[in-house]
Every structure is written in C-alpha cells, then in structure tokens.
C-alpha cells in the first residue's frame, strides 16, 4: 500500500520536473526561466524525496533523505536568489529581444 502511494508521489514529482523543463524551453525571458528553474529544483526534487521516504518507511535511510531534503529547501531558493540578484546588478536590462533563447548574451 505504502509503495503504491510512494510511487504515485514520485510520479507527481516527475510531472513537476517535466513541466519545468517544458517551461525552460517555452519562456525566453531570463527571470521567467530562473523562476521555472527554481520550481524544478525545489518543488520537483522535494516531491520526489517525499515519495522516496513514504516508499521506504521510516528508517535511518529515510532520515538521511530527509536531511538532504532540508538542505534542498534551504539552498535552492538561495541559489535562485543569488543568481537573480547578481544578474540584476551586473547585467543591465536583459530583455526578450537580446536573449536569443540559446543561453548566450
């Protein structure tokens, strides 16, 4: 029973990640892409790890996964924040016209 619930939650996490990758190709603006990227890392990975914890039951292994989850929860918004802030401070005016959609400037 727990395995089925865990598999379903892992599948939901994969769906989050797939939508994130889709959005990465759909949006051309830098900040929108950063938003989508943060969503992949935070929501997708955390849902994935919750699924793994539920699937394995509560043991020492799931405690380690929980610690990794807490680190993800702290670090991923931080990296997104640092990237957005540095881009805002150092690159003046990234717009849709200048970004060719291939990552170059």
């Amino acid at each position, binding site marked *: 029973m727990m395995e089925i619930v865990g598999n379903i939650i892992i599948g939901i996490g994969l769906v989050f990640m797939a939508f994130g990758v889709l959005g990465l190709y759909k949006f051309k603006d830098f900040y929108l892409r950063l938003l989508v990227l943060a969503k992949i890392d935070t929501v997708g990975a955390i849902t994935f790890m919750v699924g793994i914890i539920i699937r394995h039951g509560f043991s020492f292994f799931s405690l380690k996964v929980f610690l990794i989850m807490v680190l993800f929860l*702290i*670090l991923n918004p*931080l990296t997104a924040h640092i990237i957005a802030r540095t881009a805002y*401070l150092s690159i003046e005016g990234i717009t849709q016209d200048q970004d060719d959609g291939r990552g*170059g*400037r």
Partner: protein
Amino acid sequence: MIYVLLIFWITSAILAIQARKLIRIIVYLAIFSTISAVCFFMFGAPDVAMAEVAVSSFSTVFMIVCFEKYFTLVTDVSPDAPKDLKFRYKLSKILPPVVFTLILAGLFIYFIPEGTVNTYLKDLYLERFRFDVGGENAVTSIYLGFRVYDTLFEALMLLISVVGVAHMSCRSEHEISGENFSGVTKSDSVDVYTIRIICPAMLIFGMYLVLNGHVSAGGGFQGGIAIASFFICRYLIYNVYDVRYGKIMSFEKMTFAAIALLASLFIFLGFYVQFPQIRTAYLISMNMLIAMKVSFGFIIIFYRYIAFERR
C-alpha cells in the same frame, strides 16, 4: 542505462572541447564531471565518485575566479585567431592531426593483449584486507595499508603543486593590504544569514566523511575537499581576505611530515604487527592528517587565485 549515460558523457565532452565561449566551456565541463561521477557510482566506486564531485565543484569555482579576472567570460576563447580562411588551408591544418590520432588509435587497438582481466590481486586484497589492515572499506585499507607509498607520493605531489602555484603567482600585492580582491558583487543579508545556517552542516559533513572513512564510503581526500569548500564559501560570502598565508603553508609542510612519520612508524617499522588493537586509531588518524593536508593545499591554491592582481 549505463550506455545512455555514456553517450551523454561523451557528447558533453565533445561540446566542451569545441565550444567557443569560456562560460560554456565551464558549464559543459561541470556537466561532464557530474555525469562521469554518476558513471563511477554505477561502476561500484562510490569513493571515486565522491572525490570526482568534490574536485569538479572546486575546480569549477576556481576556473570561474581565474577566468573572470583575466579574460572575459562571454567572449571567444581565441579572439585573435584569423578567420575566413580558405577550405584548402583549413584541410591542410586539420588533416595531419586526424591522421596522427587515427594511427595512434590503430596502434592501440592492434596491440590489445589477449585474455581476460587478471583477478589475482583483487581476490587477494578482498580476502585479506580486514585481517591485515582493518576497517571495512577495502579502498581505504588499500591506500592506507597495502599501497601507502602511493598516498605518500600523492601528498608530495600536492605539496609540490602548491609550492609551484605560490612560486609562480606574484607575491607582493596581497599580503600588504587587506582590501577586497574579488570582482563579485557584494552579498546581501539573505546570503549571509543562510550561509551561516549552512556552513556548520558543511563542516560536519566533512568531518563525517573523514571519521567514517574506514567503515563507509569517504575518506581523507573527499573530506578534505569538503572542509576546504567551507573556507571558500566563507570567502565568497563575507568577501574578506584574512588568511595568514605563510602559517597555512608551514602547517601544510608539517602535516606532510606527520603523514610520512606515522606511515613509516606503522608500516615500515612493524608497529602494525605488534599492536593490532590500535589499527583503527591508525586509520582514523591517517585519514584526518590527509584531510588536513588536502584542505590546507586547496585553501592555499584558492586564495592565491583570489589574491592575483587584477589586470
């Protein structure tokens, strides 16, 4: 599964070789190192995978620091190279390397040794490492027990490399003034507070890797790089240069002397056979000394890159 990963691996390597912008080279190299670490894990080598991940993240940071100071990240790698050449000229440039590489590869394939892989040493080590050296990690037992010469000379190589970096970078600028050397923008309070939460976790993780190196995956090298990354993170956030460079340098040399002394005492003078009850203490202390050595070396290398004068 492993073949899909290998195809991605080789593709990212080719992209890194042929890319023209520095930032793309760095990103492709990071992808390449991460995929190779996953491949190492699938080959049953978690220690090597951990070392590869740690080294790749470290070297990504110092490549960015080094390139950002001296070159511009978004321009071409070779801006001075002549463009619009004729096809025949290009062909005459590209044909000899192709032929040379193909000849070397052909020789390599022609002289393949016959037979299968010899498993004598593998069986011997796997059978005897628990009784001869101790510990439960065969890899740690090998590089601290059976083949301790390799570890000694690796530490010597790292020491020589650190001395070389310190010798070739110019010395006078950084020790006089304590001003900011970095080109990054100043960090705000969100970064500082979050890193204050994270930094103890990084140190604890490094110490965990070092202290559990003989029973589980990990060891001196990986833990040493994790501890060094704590200091690098501290620099990147607080943006201060208050490392006493000469003291760390002499500490590193003393650590190398301690490693050599301990290894020669235990392995070559036969303490190992006389006192079997302190084998675990030997493994843990050797791992800690190696971790100190590696972290000192990497801190010196990173801070020398930071302290280079700007162009």
